[in-house]
């Protein structure tokens, strides 16, 4: 039990979940090892700094261009896809999206759904929604499959089961699938393969996400290494793709740099094993492929982020996960601590728009603003800047109109007054001088217990004399002051 951390069920707030995760040595080893390896892979994949930076800049401009004409591109995408025979649906909320998906499945009397990896379907909690309506929705990405089998949520957007080691997976497989225990990863994967191949054959509907939706050609581009994405989008007679409205790019050529940025940033691979470009359902003369292809475009708070020019940059995200791989906070607490679909730095800046800041009040503050995330982001999202901005939104007076949904959730009159006092101290030199004198002269009175600081540190005892005093004396000696 100590090995398994369904932290989401254990505690309601970030700090309590973090405390649980931090105490779990196995979990911390699993994350640290995996993140170190991913950091190295990314570094090795970008040996030339000039090339990397040029590409990041291009990626940033491609996404900015797409966002600057987002409504037009969405309409163009819809028109092109429709022309290609794909049905396009729009959903403002996850509830609407789920209803659309359910409707499509019902129309085919579908009972079994097989799913390729899709973070948007996680946002929708599609599996649960369909299960409540007697439709089995099975994850087919190995990591997602493992997580689903254990009744958990993904802890990483690219590596959903990264919090588990092989022994933990083995125990799970022998418990749930009645397989002999083995620590051999190859054998574990072959178990997954056997089980899921049958499911691909039987499934009535395949669900997938989308990495890039290309307006110019009406194409859905999906990347993957396993082949489950191709299976899910090709074998069942119906394919439903679900995606966020920010995934659209203008031109086909735009995906060339984005694809390179995505696979190298995420996994350090020059390219994934499969890049799957879907531009339509099976044509009459073709022998396989789905008869129906649907695209569900989901808003779920994205248009709220879009409304503010600074926070709009959040929507540049291509979901590579590099920000979490490089995050010292994520590395230590793992994905479940965030308690939401998107963990890590990107989760901290996007979840407030989806769930509301009041649902994740600790998210913006759970960062030392070290800047590692912004440094590696392939589309140059200024993540630290956005975290800082969300902190401002978080302490806004709730009585004022809010820019972010659920803003003002950390508003505290007391804290505001403390900062006002701090302001006074730091804008009145005489007062500041008096403070320095008092703090240095009364240094022996520094409390041994200074709240959260002294949990990790000795008491912050000031020096005998402040720099103000020492410098003054020094400069006086020099005859200056």
């Amino acid at each position: 039990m100590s090995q398994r951390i369904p932290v989401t069920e254990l505690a309601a707030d970030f700090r309590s979940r973090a405390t649980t995760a931090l105490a779990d040595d196995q979990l911390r080893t699993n994350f640290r090892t995996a993140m170190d390896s991913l950091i190295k892979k990314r570094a090795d994949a970008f040996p030339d700094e000039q090339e990397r930076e040029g590409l990041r800049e291009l990626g940033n401009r491609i996404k900015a261009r797409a966002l600057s004409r987002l409504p037009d591109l969405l309409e163009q995408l819809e028109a092109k896809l429709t022309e290609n025979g794909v049905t396009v649906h729009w959903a403002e909320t996850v509830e609407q999206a789920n209803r659309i998906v359910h409707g499509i499945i019902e129309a085919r009397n579908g009972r079994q759904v097989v799913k390729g990896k899709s973070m948007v379907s996680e946002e929708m909690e599609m599996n649960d929604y369909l299960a409540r309506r007697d439709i089995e929705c099975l994850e087919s990405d190995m990591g997602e499959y493992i997580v689903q089998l254990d009744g958990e949520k993904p802890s990483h957007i690219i590596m959903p089961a990264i919090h588990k080691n092989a022994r933990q997976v083995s125990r799970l497989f022998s418990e749930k699938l009645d397989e002999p225990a083995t620590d051999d990863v190859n054998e574990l994967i072959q178990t997954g393969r056997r089980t899921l191949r049958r499911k691909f054959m039987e499934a009535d509907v395949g669900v997938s996400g989308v990495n890039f939706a290309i307006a110019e050609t009406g194409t859905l581009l999906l990347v993957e290494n396993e082949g489950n994405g191709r299976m899910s989008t090709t074998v069942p007679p119906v394919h439903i793709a679900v995606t966020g409205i920010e995934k659209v790019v203008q031109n086909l050529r735009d995906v060339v740099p984005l694809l390179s940025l995505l696979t190298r940033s995420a996994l350090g691979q020059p390219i994934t094993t499969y890049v799957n470009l879907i531009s339509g359902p099976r044509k009459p003369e073709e022998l396989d492929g789905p008869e129906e292809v649907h695209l569900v475009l989901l808003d779920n708070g994205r248009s709220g982020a879009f409304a503010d020019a600074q926070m709009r940059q959040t929507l540049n995200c291509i979901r590579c996960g590099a920000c979490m791989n490089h995050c010292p906070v994520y590395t230590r607490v793992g994905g479940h601590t965030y308690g939401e679909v998107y963990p890590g730095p990107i989760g901290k800046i996007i979840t407030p728009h989806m769930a509301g800041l009041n649902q994740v009040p600790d998210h913006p503050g759970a960062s030392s603003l070290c800047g590692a995330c912004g440094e590696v982001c392939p589309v140059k999202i200024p993540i630290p800047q956005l975290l800082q901005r969300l902190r401002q939104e978080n302490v806004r007076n709730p009585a004022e109109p809010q820019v972010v949904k659920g803003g003002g959730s950390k508003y505290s009159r007391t804290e505001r007054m403390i900062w006002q006092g701090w302001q006074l101290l730091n804008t009145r030199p005489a007062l500041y001088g008096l403070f320095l004198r008092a703090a240095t002269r009364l240094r022996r009175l520094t409390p041994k217990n200074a709240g959260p600081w002294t949990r990790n540190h000795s008491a912050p005892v000031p020096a005998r004399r402040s720099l103000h005093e020492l410098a003054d004396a020094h400069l006086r000696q020099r005859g200056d002051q």
Partner: protein
Amino acid sequence: MTARSNILGKLRNSLAGTTPRPDEFDEQLVTRPWQYPPAARVERLRSLMEAVHTEVHQVSATDWPALVADLLNRRNLSNLLCAPATDHGKALQHYWQTTGQRSQLLAYDRPIEQWKTALFENVEASITGTIGGIAATGSLVLWPDRHEPRLMSLVPPVHIALLKASEIHDNLYDLMTAQRWAAGLPTNALLVSGPSKTADIEQVLAYGAHGPKELIVVILDQA
């Protein structure tokens, strides 16, 4: 319709008074670092693909059926899914007939619904053509069609792909441009860069996740 107009309305409202950003696409950034002398393309593709467990062979454009027969025999495979109507399908059939091969050539000649179980359970290997390769990333490009449907390169545990050396492009951008992809794509286009794999358990790389366990690339030199 209301969701659609609400979403578009909100987005338009947020962009009020702004102009769309210009297209600053710089093709140099995606081409210049990825250029190779023609002679080096094969080597680059081969080394990248081999690094991800792909078996790569290079033979003359006429000798390849013998190699394919040998590949099957060495693996003790009893059948091979191929497209009889294509040039390479014809060549293969001819070779099989003249040499009396033990393994059976199968054709994907019915809609998937009519033989799904057989495809998943009985077919041991497949052979398809490609419409090109990419040296920069070590990738094959496939445009499945009625002769070589999408699942041919996915379901059988062994996938053999024929690639003409002359059709290896430097990078994806060059290939897309040369083949005029933006003017129209097939219902499904694929880049394949190795056998199926996963690193989802402890980051340990395991091959044969859901797709082919083996990818064999046969590079054809000019006849």
